[in-house]
């Protein structure tokens, strides 16, 4: 996806048909025929190693941002969190698991046992690297900076956790980080603002998530 329009089109194409309960393959083919960038991105995604869980997964920011130094000079950047936990390949039993929550349940159990850590790796782009198309990877030889460590040592459910009340708006940035011309930043900001307003508005009536405090505590020591 490199625009809100293509995201919308893909959602429509992957909508389950009422007759079969499954997406219409013709609709997806038609979508892909018009979106060669998605075909290319999917080919790249398919080559990756599927890890055994969230703890040994790398998380890549597809959107690009700009870092600005004190002199006002900017560089395009993308970042990734790379797991410190050894990466294990997903087993056949895992991929056959029909429990929808097993990845989340494992993560909760692991964090109860010991903190999980990721390296925050910042990739410095060259002026020629695309910042307005999240489907295009940057060349692999770009400079990488180890910018620190992300440690997760606690887990809480959304009904008591602090993050429910935060809108992770990609246009609300600290001094020194600026948005790029990536159209997804505005699209995400606009959509998140709307959904945050709806979510905040129903807070008094409805729990923020199906995963409540009990789901977290029940996995302690299991």
């Amino acid at each position: 996806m490199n625009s809100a329009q293509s995201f919308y089109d893909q959602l429509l194409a992957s909508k389950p048909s009422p007759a079969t309960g499954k997406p219409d393959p013709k609709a997806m083919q038609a979508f892909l025929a018009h979106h060669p960038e998605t075909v290319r991105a999917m080919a790249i995604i398919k080559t990756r190693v599927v890890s055994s869980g969230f703890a040994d997964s790398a998380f890549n920011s597809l959107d690009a941002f700009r870092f600005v130094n004190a002199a006002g000079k900017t560089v395009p950047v993308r970042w990734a969190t790379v797991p410190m936990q050894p990466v294990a390949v997903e087993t056949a039993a895992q991929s056959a698991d029909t429990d929808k929550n097993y990845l989340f349940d494992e993560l909760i159990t692991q964090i109860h046992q010991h903190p999980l850590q990721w390296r925050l790796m910042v990739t410095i782009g060259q002026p020629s690297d695309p910042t307005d198309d999240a489907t295009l990877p940057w060349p692999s030889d770009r400079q990488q900076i180890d910018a620190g460590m992300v440690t997760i040592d606690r887990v809480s459910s959304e009904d008591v956790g602090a993050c429910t009340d935060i809108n992770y708006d990609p246009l609300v940035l600290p001094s020194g980080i600026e948005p790029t011309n990536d159209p997804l930043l505005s699209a995400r900001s606009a959509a998140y603002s709307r959904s945050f307003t709806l979510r905040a508005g129903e807070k008094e009536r409805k729990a923020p998530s199906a995963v409540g405090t009990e789901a977290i505590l029940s996995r302690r020591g299991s």
Partner: protein
Amino acid sequence: MSTDQLRFAATSRLLHWLMAVLVLAMLFIGVGMVTSESRRYHLLLCVHKPLGIAILVLVIIRFINRQLNPPPPLPDTMPPWMRLAAKGSHVLLYGLMFIMPLVGWGMLSAAPYPVVLLGPVHLPPILPQDPVLYARLRQLHTILAYLFFATFLAHLGAALLHGLIRRDGVFASMASWARSTGSTRETFSGPK
């Protein structure tokens, strides 16, 4: 009566027309912003906040100016209901110009979003973090915006009614920049 007594003071006219441009721009920026997801969204968002604060500052100056330079009296030809409508719509316009930026500022504070004026220049929050309050104020901001649109149109309609149909000098008392001596109201009093 002399021209100066029939016309709004120069500072009043200046403030009126400056704010007319800002408010009209603001109404369209606001509506454009919430119905857009393109890169324009970010640009409009960046303009919306400082412009809102500018309107808040200007309406306070304007209110003080109004006490120092009271508006000219309405013509005797205006029936009582019209005077009442004129007074009511002006109270509403002043109220909205004052309340809208405060609701916006309060809503951002409650979210809490940074209240960015320009680059690193931020305003302090005026309300504590409260998501439910944020959602209510966000909704209020929209409702007041449409009320503002309607009031603006009523104001424009009334101005045209005075200027084109009634020709009673009310329009000229704000619109005329001529340095003419003698009564402006007579000049614009229409066919005899």
